[in-house]
């Protein structure tokens, strides 16, 4: 915890019109109360860092690296769909939406999926691994193009639970 981080939190509080804040972690406890105390909320200093990341073009990444200000994976924010849950890649490999090149996709945007239903395939080491949804709900967004490589933990779908 450093002043910049505290400042970021305070600015975040102003920006979010937050009046009181309590933050406890194994390392520290932070509580803040602003002017007319009403609400209590936890700020998101991580969002600040994420914005800076987008300014760095990937190809010049090594040259301009400023470790302190970077966050690792360029995960699409789930915020375009509040309340949505992500289905993430449990293994590294190539993402396929269809069981075969000439088949229909497992799921499309707007489809309802049940927990345990196969939503895509990830090919790894010449094996096709069926990936099941961890949640029941409606597919709101498909975050990866057919045939694209995916890393561990990469968000694949946004699902609105229902």
């Amino acid at each position, binding site marked *: 915890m450093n002043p910049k981080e505290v400042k970021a939190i305070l600015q975040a509080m102003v920006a979010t019109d937050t009046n009181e804040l309590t933050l406890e972690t194994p*390392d520290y406890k932070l509580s803040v109360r602003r002017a007319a105390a009403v609400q209590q909320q936890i700020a998101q200093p991580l969002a600040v860092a994420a914005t800076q990341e987008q300014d760095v073009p990937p190809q010049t990444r090594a040259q301009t*690296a400023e470790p*302190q200000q*970077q966050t*690792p994976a360029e995960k699409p924010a789930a915020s375009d769909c509040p309340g949505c849950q992500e289905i993430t890649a449990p293994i*590294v*490999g190539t993402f396929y939406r269809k069981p075969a090149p000439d088949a229909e996709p497992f799921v499309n945007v707007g489809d309802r999926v049940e927990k345990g239903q196969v939503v895509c395939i990830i090919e790894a080491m010449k094996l096709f691994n069926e990936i099941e949804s961890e949640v029941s709900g409606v597919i709101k967004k498909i975050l990866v193009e057919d045939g694209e490589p995916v890393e*561990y933990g990469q968000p694949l779908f946004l699902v609105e639970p229902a």
Partner: protein
Amino acid sequence: MFKKVLIANRGEIALRIVRAARELGVRSVVVHSEADADSLPVLLADEAICIGPASAQQSYLNIPNILSAAIISGADAIHPGYGFLAENAQFAEMIAEHGVTFIGPTPENMRMLGDKATARRIAREAGVPVVPGTDALESVAEALAAAAQIGYPVILKASAGGGGRGMRVVHTPDGLENAVLQAKEEARAAFGNPEIYLEKYVEEPKHVEVQVLGDGKKVVHLWERDCSIQRRHQKLLEEAPSTLPQEVRRGLTGAAVKLAKHINYQSAGTLEFLVDREGNYYFIEMNTRIQVEHPVTEMITGVDLVAEQFRIAAGEGLRLKQKDIISRGHAIEARINAEDPDRNFRPSIGKVETVLWPGGTGVRVDSHLYTGYEIPSHYDSLLGKVIVWAEDRQAAIKRMQRALGEAVVDGPGLKTTIPFHKKVLDNAFFRRGAIYTNFIARRMSE
């Protein structure tokens, strides 16, 4: 040369390999766990792929995900660093099946040297001395005969043992019978197996290792390192060359080359020896990988060992000739671990708020730290290595004292081994080279 290398490691060695790749014009892909997502090698690599959660078992040891990462990124080679998959022959074979080159020894090399018993046999075949000893003892009489032949003191070890347990040193024939009976009993109690064997007890040995490079045909050595400063078999401070007499250095390095040639060794490797006070040396084992302490050898020879690993794996053959590899001056490496030397080297984690590494003449730093870095709790505690070179050992000691004196690695609650190294460097026995594997236990504990 390769087009793209996947680096299946983390921390300072991953960064070391990214650097070598960049200098060779090879693109780098660093695979990493979620806990290492904002680590320096990940940020400095050309590409990075997350391969699993923090647990090493599910990330750095996750062969399917690492192999998939190689395939989706189009890497034509994998450098395993040290630890993790570096000495896993099966991994090397699997990636070869997918057309990816393993930057390291052949699977056969690894298998031959993978267990100590086979390595001992190979050493004997090659005519390289090993610690004299027996197979499993059948009787006290056999123990007495063997000890008489080998010479006292001897040590009794449990065949199923390890980590120093169930060992018993015997100095005279009088004590041997009792010791054998007790050691068998202890072995049965500790490991459920009473089998024991006998070995010459090398008293106060130096741990000296020889760096070799081979291309499957030719082998050269790059002189030796003294790694006697160990705590519970963990090396803390290493130097090159050793303070051994020239004829012992020649003997050791010659033996190392003989053994490595015998098995057509390929890539960088290290042959570890125990050296007693009379200068007798005994081969213990070979590490078939780049080692943490490789920079001291680079400092005295001017050879970039990791770049040579790349060249050999790429089939360029060994371009170094033995006569061109000159041992020049003296180098020392201090491992900076996140451990509290005052509390029995208990690991210390947290956020690094201040980093100021030393610089100037003859100082090299290999570290993945930066200001603001959070040390993850899932991996080993190595934060970096400070390496110095100077014209002789005394000058190198002074330079290391100067360098560590200006180093700052600080954060809330963070402790490092820097103060411990300063004490070692200040110790009169260390300064005159009186270092043996029991140095820390004997000279540094009060």
